[in-house]
């Protein structure tokens, strides 16, 4: 018995329809892929590992809560190391092979700036934690910052220097990159606006290990307080060397010097007379969701969490909220994020502007005398 043309075409259509239905069904059950470019190795992994852990915890929590309208999420990580070109390659690899619905970029501004043009081509919303104002000023509508911008942090440091320490002759020490230079310049302008002259500005390289020349120069210029724009390890080293050199003036650090990875390198004596501006005050005494987050993170990963990681956790929760409400269409999700106002994360209240800046609150802290415990001096909210 021969096959008629009609039955042959019918069976082809049937098979095609079946496979199409199958693929749609499979797609509905497939996890939503999220790309994360994180410094997992190299000198920047000190903080990178923290937000890799936080994102992994967020993925677990989102999926336990039913995922995104019954679809699970899966975060795919790529290593950016400490290099801009590696960060770009990591991003492009994810964009081409994984095709994620959403991205998390690293917390290093130089890498964010390098990746921004590629993100503009891909046109998928992304969250990042680099603080440099230059990233937001670049006008990439797909980028949303989950931490305070450096200008906000610098303003907070100036506020602490003027209002809390009441310094008259501040000096500035900064790491020589987009973050450090931007922060130092913002701080200098703010001091100038307050009628206070900065007595000196000193720089150091990312791989530098000796800061005696810069610290002694600032002391020689009569600095009564030193503001430090630093990364974690160099920040800890600066604080330690300042004590070894016998510097007595207060030191005001940016947040990186007070993350657990840095403070574990310091003694209580190293932290004497040290103030800092941290993104969020992370202590179980805060209670509520903060207590829960800190305790769960510590039991899961065996280390204390830091504010950078918390920012990514909050970011992932905000992303999930958006996806549940408006789906995963990139443009719709981007528009929803831009319209977010007063979204209550664990670490911050998120309200986005047209430039993708979402956080304007931070905290001034100080080490409790004779201990390494940070105590809250005052919360700061800036416009």
């Amino acid at each position, binding site marked *: 018995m021969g096959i008629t043309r009609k039955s042959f075409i019918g069976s082809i259509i049937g098979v095609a329809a079946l496979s199409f239905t199958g693929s749609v069904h499979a797609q509905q059950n497939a996890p939503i892929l999220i790309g994360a470019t994180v410094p997992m190795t190299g000198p920047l992994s*000190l903080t*990178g590992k923290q937000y890799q852990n936080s994102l992994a915890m967020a993925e677990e929590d989102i999926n336990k809560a039913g995922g995104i309208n019954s679809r699970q999420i899966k975060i795919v990580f790529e290593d950016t190391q400490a290099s801009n070109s590696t960060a770009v390659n990591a991003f492009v690899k994810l964009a081409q092979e994984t095709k994620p619905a959403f991205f998390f970029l690293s917390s290093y501004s130089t890498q964010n700036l390098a990746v921004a043009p590629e993100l503009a081509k891909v046109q998928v919303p992304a969250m990042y934690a680099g603080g440099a104002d230059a990233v937001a000023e670049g006008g990439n509508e797909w980028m949303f910052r989950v931490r305070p911008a450096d200008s906000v942090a610098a303003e907070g440091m100036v506020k602490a220097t003027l209002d809390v320490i009441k310094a008259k002759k501040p000096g500035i020490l900064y790491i020589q990159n987009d973050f450090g230079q931007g922060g130092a310049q913002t701080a200098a302008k703010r001091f100038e606006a307050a009628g206070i002259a900065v007595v000196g500005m000193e*720089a150091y*390289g990312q791989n530098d*290990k000796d800061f*005696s*020349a810069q610290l002694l120069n600032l002391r020689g210029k009569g600095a009564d307080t030193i503001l430090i724009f630093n990364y974690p390890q160099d920040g*800890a080293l600066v604080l330690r060397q300042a004590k*070894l050199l016998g510097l007595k003036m207060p030191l005001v650090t940016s947040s990186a010097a007070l993350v657990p990875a840095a403070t574990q390198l310091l003694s209580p004596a190293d932290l004497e007379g040290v103030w800092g501006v941290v993104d969020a005050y992370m202590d179980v005494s805060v209670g509520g969701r903060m207590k829960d987050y800190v305790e769960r993170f510590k039991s899961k990963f065996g*280390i204390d969490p830091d504010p950078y990681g918390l920012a990514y956790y909050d970011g992932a929760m905000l992303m999930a909220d958006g996806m549940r409400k408006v789906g995963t269409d990139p443009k719709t999700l981007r528009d929803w994020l831009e319209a977010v106002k007063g979204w209550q994360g664990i670490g911050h209240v998120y309200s986005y502007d047209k430039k993708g800046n979402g956080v304007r609150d931070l905290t001034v802290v100080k080490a409790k005398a004779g201990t390494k415990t940070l105590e809250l001096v005052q919360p700061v909210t800036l416009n």
Partner: protein
Amino acid sequence: MADFVQLLVNGLAIGSVYALAAIGFVIVYSATGVVNFAAGQFVMYGTFAGVATLINLQLPWPLAYGTALIIMAMFGVLFFVSVYLPMRRGSIVTIIIGTVAISITIQNAALLSFGSWPFRLPSPVEDSSIALGGTIISTHALGVVGVTAIMVGGLWLLFNRTSVGVGMRAVAQDLQAAKLMGLKVNRLLALSWVLAAVLAGVAGLMLGPMWFADVNMGDPIALKAFAATIIGGFGSLPGAIVGGLFVGLSEVLGASYVSSAYKDLISFGIMIAFLLVRPQGVFGEKIQDRG
């Protein structure tokens, strides 16, 4: 003046570490003709040998330091057997790429073993300091300078007053002649690697309390040690010492009296100037072809 003295001691302490790394570099190059691009990772490995013995095993000071240096000596032997011997007949490019690859491997092995968080390696003198007028000098920094001086003295005695040292120099000067004279060349070559590893271990143990133990600390040290050997003279032990001290001092004093933003430019600028004007360095001989 007080600040100058403080900077001088700091510069000498950092320069001493560069000098030790550079000496290791020179010993290996003189004996084997290999430019060891993993020299910085040798220092890092020495620091982490200290982390293992002092922090993880909590051994008392002399035993911890002794064990760390034995670990480094074994590491030198392992490097000789597993890296140098298989590559020694390869081209210069093969050896360079090989040592760079090994350098990356060592770094990532340390990352996997110890994690990304740095350690604070303790010092036998802790954070004590000596106050002289307005100057506060770290006892550890002074100790680093003293230990380096002792190591240099010990090396001089080894190379000039012992048959093993004379044999090592003979192998470095003419390998074939040394073989014909009945010297155990392979053993002496292995000893060169052991010596380089032990010196790097001493540098690493002294550096840990100053800079923290960090798996990424090797590369900057390698660059500075390389600059020190170029300035002092490739293949010259006195040159490595002078070059190391010079780089350390120019780094610290340059940052203070010229510009903190351009201090590395000063060190490497001087190195480039030497390469252009006097490629044999301060103490080096006229460069000739070498196998």
